[in-house]
Every structure is written in structure tokens, then in C-alpha cells.
């Protein structure tokens, strides 16, 4: 009895795979990929073009490399007709104007290096500001003292002819 059950499950599985493979290779419709939910999002557009080779079966999809890397290589497909451009709507990060990051997200090590570089810039700026402040303090103190001393000096005696 168990043999029959196992055999039937295997048969169903193999048939399902065969049907699914047929559908994928022979259909022009592709399921839309999942895009991560983001708390604040901005709808944007990404143009996809269907380019078929001479054999008429290969379809290439062009999309932004930066966008793809940003979403960890997840690809998105859209419904389109062969030989025509179609626009599909995708969601991606950020509010306001859609903008892609200048550098794609890299490994944790690369992120650490970037964080360190940013921290170094902030630190250098702080040091520079401190030096300027010290010079200004010093000069102001001396100037104030000199001007105060001048004001205290007695006036020159008036010569009466």
C-alpha cells in the first residue's frame, strides 16, 4: 500500500515538473518577481525590452544593473509582448525622486570600509574646525585686551599757548 502511495506521489511530481517546464519554455508570460516590501516607497518605472534572436526563442531582458544589485540580484519580469516595449511598475526605495545608490551594496566588509571612510572625514573636519576655533579664540582675546588697554590710557596733555 505504501509502495502505491509513494509511486503515485512520484508520478504526480514528475508530471507537474514536465507540465511546468513546458509552460515556462513555451509561454511568453512570466510571473512578476517579488520585490521586498519597504515602509516608504516610491513607484517608479523600469523599461523592459524583449529582444529575440534569430531562432525566435531566446528572450533577453534589459534592466538596470544597479537596481538589480540593490535588490540582491532579484530579477523582475514583466508582462510584455514579443518585439514590443512595455512599461511595468516596480517599487524601490526612497521617497521623492527615485534615485539609485551611486555604489551598489557590497559585502559587509565593503560597508565597514565605507563607514570608516565617512567617520574619518567627519573626524578630519572636526579637527580642522577645532584648530580654526583655537586660533580665533587666541586672536580675539589678545585683540580685546589691546583695545581695552588703549581705551584706558589717559589722554595726551593739552598744550595751551
Amino acid at each position, binding site marked *: 500500500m505504501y509502495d502505491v502511495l509513494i509511486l503515485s506521489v512520484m508520478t504526480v511530481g514528475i508530471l507537474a515538473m514536465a507540465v511546468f517546464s513546458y509552460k515556462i519554455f513555451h509561454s511568453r508570460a512570466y510571473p512578476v518577481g517579488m520585490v521586498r516590501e519597504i515602509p516608504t516607497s516610491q513607484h517608479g518605472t523600469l523599461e523592459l525590452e524583449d529582444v529575440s534572436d534569430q531562432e525566435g526563442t531566446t528572450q533577453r531582458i534589459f534592466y538596470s544593473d544597479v537596481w538589480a544589485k540593490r535588490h540582491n540580484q532579484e530579477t523582475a519580469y514583466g508582462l510584455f509582448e514579443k518585439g514590443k516595449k512595455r512599461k511595468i511598475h516596480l517599487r524601490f526605495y526612497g521617497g521623492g525622486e527615485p534615485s539609485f545608490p551611486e555604489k551598489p551594496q557590497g559585502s559587509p566588509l565593503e560597508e565597514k570600509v565605507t563607514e570608516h571612510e565617512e567617520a574619518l572625514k567627519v573626524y578630519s573636519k*572636526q579637527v580642522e*574646525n*577645532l584648530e580654526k576655533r*583655537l*586660533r580665533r*579664540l*587666541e*586672536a580675539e*582675546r*589678545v*585683540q580685546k*585686551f*589691546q583695545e581695552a588697554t588703549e581705551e584706558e590710557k589717559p589722554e*595726551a*596733555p593739552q*598744550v595751551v599757548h
Partner: protein
Amino acid sequence: MATFDESLVSVSGRIGHERDFTFYKNNVDLANLLQKELSATPKEITIDTDGDIEIEMSDVGTIIATPSAAIAVGWLTTPKVLSVQQEVEKFVNTLDRLAKLKGSFAVESYSIGLFFRFRPENPLNLLRERGFESSLQFIFSEKAPPDIASLKSSTTRSKGKFRDTIELEASSKDARVRYSRSGNGAGFDSYLTFVVAASLREMLEELKPFAEILLAAERGLRLSGLLSEMK
């Protein structure tokens, strides 16, 4: 009229140490501690927008605590006073105490600096006559501009265990000279040892000839001012 020994000089000092990464978290507590432990009459204590602590002291100028340094700037005194060891020690001890109150951090550097401000009649022309004209002619190929708005020069040198920086800035209003001497923290047991070795007297002696020229020009300006008032 002031001689060099009686002229006004501003002294600044710094003890640089390894960074205190908890400084900005604890700066309020530290500010309260400094106010309590330092001089009995600090005029004003503030925490600035960067999180650094600034204390206006009545006797040693302004002292500033940052994550990696204890700084005193603007102690107004005269070269004559600086020749008295006890007066210098008062300044040194205040800065030392500030550094210790911040915590036990390895000292990385020490420095001490002198700042003079002179107001002769025409500082730029005076400096041009005294040597900068040839530099301008060298740069501009004998066609040195007749009028300049400002002048800056900076020179560094190594002298034994020390690194000196001499800066000169001049405008139409004044001429400013900064002479600072710094040394590696590991080369000295304490800030006092550093300051004694740095020899403020030697630094002042080096600046004296140049300062006296500018002071003489200042005196000349004041004398002509007095004479014109008497007429």
C-alpha cells in the same frame, strides 16, 4: 612704551592623548567634575555643538576638553612673567590636572605656543621691506604687485626632540606671529618636563629681534599720533 619684555603674549598649551571613545557620552558628567575640581572661580563652562567642553578661566585663559586632547588657549601674560618658573608651573599644572581628570589615557603629544599681535602703521609694507619683497619678486618675476591685501608664511623645522612651527600673518591692520613647539608624548615624563625642556625663554629669545622691529614701528606710530594730537 612697551618693550619686548613688557609686550603682550598669549600662551597656549596642549596635551594630546589616545582617543576617549566615551567622551561624548559622558561629557556632561565630566563638565560638572571639571567645574568642581578646577579653579574655584571658573567664569563660564559650556558644551559646544561638537560636544567639546569649554571653560573660561580667570587666570589661564580658556581650557578646552576634547576626546583626544586637553587644551589651554589665551593665557595673556608678558615675556617677563614667562621667565618666572612658578608662573609657568601654574599654567602647566592646570592643564595637567585637566588631562588627569579626563581619565588615564596614554599621552601622544605635548605642545606649547606663543602668539604675538603687533599693530605698526603699515604692517604689509614693513614686512615687504624686511624681506618679503624678494619673495614676491621671485614669484612674480621682478613684477611684484605694488599692493597686497595680506601675507602668510608658515615654516616648520625639527630641533632635537621638538618640532617647531613658526607662522606669520599680516594684513593692513596687524601682524601676527605664532611660534609653537611640540614633542612626542613618549619622550617626556610629564607636561612640566616637556615645557622645561622646550624652554620658553629660548623661544622668546629667538623671536625677540623680529618682535622688536615691529614694536619699534608700533612705538613710532603712537609717537606720531601723540605729536599730531598736541599740535
